[in-house]
């Protein structure tokens, strides 16, 4: 009887999931359920007793369910600790522990406790619910802390110093100077060129203006030191590398398929690849013993494990230069990766967004260079590029897909409807990148500054007894702090991270956010600093590592 009353009230949806959410709606819904039930009971005089009791029981059951359902959100409950089994779960797991840490603003978790989010009467999609459920990782929390209390030498000397965001402020002055001198014409016209509103305001090709493709292809070739000549016709431009990666994921895999991704990887990769596509990521652990290089054995093992789980692996996503480690892939590794992909008949997405941000002597080899000579692999290799890092302009949102697979390009071009670059920005970049003199100078000076900062920063850490892996690219170094964590576990790592953030006030990225299999590794981004900030940072880290030493 309770059954009929219940389903009559709900909008007639057969899905058991909605039943769950409706019943979890709290007092309001409970009342709406109970009242008609009583009506039914009273209508059948004799049945009153027999109905009121089950009704009451049902009523209490709802309360019980509701309370019970909220429990997993309580960070202290054992339930959240139980969820540590699967490797792909680790972000939420670490986040679950995080909220226990002292000194974190409670407000961070408030949206998650709101009854609306918990699945009130209004039902959102499963995708939305899972996005809302995954609480902020230490990576996000750190970024929020910096936003709330940013370090400023004069204005806020006690603020949090940003070492958690891979952005490059070292050479912004060069871009700024260029703009001041040249860019009036880029958008507004001037001299002989007239401002053409039609060229910026109307519908433009969604996959990027041809002129910009030519300019970006030229820039890519220049950044990679002319080892490859990129063809503009093979480029699809998007609003940032994030949509470029998502777009490729949509093109290459169906929901429920998987990509192999070597760990440690960039903290937001899970978002980019998994969130809306329904694709899974299979971790391929890289270890400090191999200087975090990809091992084919590990790839092979991950591939067969995925197969055993019934997952169809559609590709490998690599980052070269690696983020967060900063090492480069050598030719040999690339060839063996290609062999592996060929053998398994899967794709490779090569994320090369830091290609121009290399320093040191090691040679950067783009996957594009290899496929130019190896005809057979042309269709399975897709390169992701962006101007955010190499041109220090993440705000401009320019990403690119470079592929020789015409089918992928055709699909990606159509997908750019959802995320194309705004036309004024395209016009601006066309002018900027077409100035080859400027581009050449920028790349040179930027590399030199990057290298200098890297050497100084790593030397500073070394003084404290912190070693970094050998790296040649990116805006960061990958620091070994295994000696300073109170216990050799993710918990120990997060304790150190917490001290660095809250006691020393430096925001760094713990390896667990990058799914590093070994605890105790941290990513330090140094390109948001000025050279004179380095001693301040090192001093702050010293305060923490010294207490750790004395404890150890």
């Amino acid at each position, binding site marked *: 009887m309770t059954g009929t009353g219940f389903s009559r009230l709900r909008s007639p949806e057969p899905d058991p999931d909605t039943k769950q959410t409706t019943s979890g709606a709290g007092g309001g819904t409970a009342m709406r359920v109970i009242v008609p039930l009583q009506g039914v009971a009273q209508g059948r005089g004799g049945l009153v007793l027999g109905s009121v009791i089950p009704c009451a029981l049902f009523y209490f059951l709802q309360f019980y369910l509701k309370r019970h359902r909220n429990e997993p959100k309580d960070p202290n409950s054992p339930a959240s600790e139980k969820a540590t089994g699967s490797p792909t779960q680790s972000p939420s797991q670490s986040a679950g522990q995080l909220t226990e840490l002292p000194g974190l603003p409670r407000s961070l978790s408030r949206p998650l406790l*709101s009854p609306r989010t918990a699945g009130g009467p209004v039902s959102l*999609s499963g995708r939305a619910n899972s996005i809302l459920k995954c609480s902020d990782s230490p990576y996000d929390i750190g970024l929020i802390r910096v936003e709330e209390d940013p370090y400023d030498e004069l204005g806020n000397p006690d603020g949090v110093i940003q070492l958690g965001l891979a952005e490059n402020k070292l050479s912004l002055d060069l871009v700024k100077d260029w703009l001041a001198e040249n860019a009036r014409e880029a958008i507004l016209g001037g001299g002989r060129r007239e401002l053409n509103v039609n060229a910026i305001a109307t519908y433009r090709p969604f996959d990027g203006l041809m002129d910009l493709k030519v300019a970006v292809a030229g820039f890519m070739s220049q950044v990679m030191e002319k080892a490859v000549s990129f063809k503009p016709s093979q480029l699809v431009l998007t609003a940032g590398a994030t949509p470029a990666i998502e777009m490729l994921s949509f093109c290459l895999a169906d929901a429920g398929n998987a990509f192999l991704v070597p760990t440690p990887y960039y903290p937001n990769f899970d978002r980019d690849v998994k969130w809306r596509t329904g694709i899974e990521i299979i971790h391929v652990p890289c270890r400090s013993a191999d200087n975090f290089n990809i091992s084919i054995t590990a790839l092979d093992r991950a591939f067969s494990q995925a197969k055993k789980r019934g997952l169809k692996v559609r590709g490998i996503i690599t980052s070269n230069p690696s983020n967060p480690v900063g090492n480069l892939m050598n030719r040999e590794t690339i060839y063996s990766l290609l062999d592996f992909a060929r053998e398994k008949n899967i794709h490779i997405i090569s994320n090369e967004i830091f290609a121009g941000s290399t320093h040191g002597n090691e040679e950067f080899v783009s996957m594009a260079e290899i496929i130019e000579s190896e005809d057979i692999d042309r269709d399975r290799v897709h390169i992701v590029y962006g101007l955010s890092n190499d041109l220090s302009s993440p705000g401009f949102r320019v990403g690119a897909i470079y592929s020789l697979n015409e089918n992928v390009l055709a699909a990606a071009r159509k997908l750019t409807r959802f995320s*194309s670059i705004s036309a004024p920005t395209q016009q601006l970049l066309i002018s900027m990148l077409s100035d080859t003199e400027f581009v050449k100078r920028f790349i040179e000076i930027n590399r030199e500054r990057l290298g200098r900062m890297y050497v100084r920063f790593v030397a500073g850490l070394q003084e404290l007894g912190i070693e970094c892996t050998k790296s040649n690219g990116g805006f960061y170094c990958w620091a070994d702090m295994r000696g300073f964590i109170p216990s050799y576990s993710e918990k120990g790592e997060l304790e150190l991270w917490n001290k660095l953030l809250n006691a020393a006030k430096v925001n760094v990225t713990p390896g667990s956010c990058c799914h590093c299999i070994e605890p105790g590794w941290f990513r330090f981004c140094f390109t948001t600093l000025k050279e004179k900030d380095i001693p301040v940072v090192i001093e702050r880290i010293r305060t923490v590592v010294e207490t750790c030493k004395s404890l150890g």
Partner: protein
Amino acid sequence: MVLMLRNQELLSKIATSNGHGEDSPYFDGWKAYDSDPFHPTQNPEGVIQMGLAENQLCFNLIHEWLLKNPEASICTAQGAAEFRDIAIFQDYHGLAEFREAVAKFMGKVRRNRASFDPDRIVMSGGATGAHEMIAFCLADPGDAFLVPTPYYPGFDRDLRWRTGVKLIPVVCESSNDYQITIEALEAAYETAQEADIKVKGLLIPNPSNPLGTIITKDTLEALVTFTNHKNIHLVCDEIYAATVFSQPEFTSIAEIIEEDKICCNRDLIHIIYSLSKDMGFPGFRVGIVYSYNDAVVSCARKMSSFGLVSSQTQYLIASMLADDEFVDQFIVESRKRLAMRHSFFTQRLAQVGINCLKSNAGLFVWMDLRRLLKEQTFEAEMVLWRVIINEIKLNVSPGSSFHCSEPGWFRVCFANMDDKTMEIALSRIKTFMLQHKEAMVPKKKLCWQTSLRLSFSSRYEDIMETPGSFMSPHSPIPQSPLVRART
């Protein structure tokens, strides 16, 4: 070759399916235009684009503003000082100034009868991205949205392609001027139920694309009640809000909510907005999701990383929309010019015997060519459409691509060209109609049409100032004062 095939199998269903919807005549027309585009001097015989809902009538205002405010585009000596902060700004919340300016603009467009909270403004890659984002947030693969027909062909792509969501048509008919009725809604809802499809929401474009009509307040209230009753979402696509150029006035869903007269669960209400139509900036790729549901705001915000607007453009728009004087003038002037162009166009069509659905918004008219069909079928509609595109050389969009339930209707855009091109398009139509005169059955003129022509007698300012006079039947019409007014 073998390898190519093998690899093609390796692509996803999304990549290999035709979910992009570009196989429809709507896009075929664009291709025809692209292969032979009209140009007044270089290609005067080319295809004139009347299939693109672009608003170019006020570009000169934008042009002037950009020249007057060079610092806004940050790329000048004056603006470069801001560059450092702007270039590296990549927060998916968007610049605070941008959100504030857009919120204010959204209010202004609705004559300040509703206010918008900057914290609920979520950015996305154009209205296309906004629609997809809301579909991602509200529905799972296999779930459905109800959409009244005829609807914008792009919805099939925007809401369905990557999300796996379905669209269920709510059939509207010309017999009642395509008004959406609760009966039709109930029928569509029933159909879904019978097919065991979970309906997650109702999508209402208001003003409608392709009809150019607006939804009355009463109907809106009824829709709110309907969706609340069914506990489904109501997504209002108001991207044409500022194109409402004459009476009756536009009512936004936001007003209904703020009035709070009818019982409404705010968590179910979402607005899609964009600057592509109202400001004529499709190239800026600014789409907005404005939701009254906190969870949707927070989820959509996290998703906006997939379609962020460049910070340079955010800054430019923030500066422009914060200029109250400019915005106020722009909104008034844009309405005025649209009204003029619309009445000019419909009047001239009427002279050659073509009727359009009465409309007061949008950048297009819904043209009734049923009398020109050999028989009342969609095949005959396609035959006529091919004649229009190949012989008259106009790219218009056939009703079938909008899922219209009746053959013989066409959407014709009128705001994406200058006066001269418009004249050429009209003269081509006239020639064609004269040739096909025998095919036409003389029909009684509709009264609204007469009044439209009559409205030309008064000065267009009067039309705008006292919109009531727009409908009043007085005095005869001299030929096109608009041409004089605009040259």
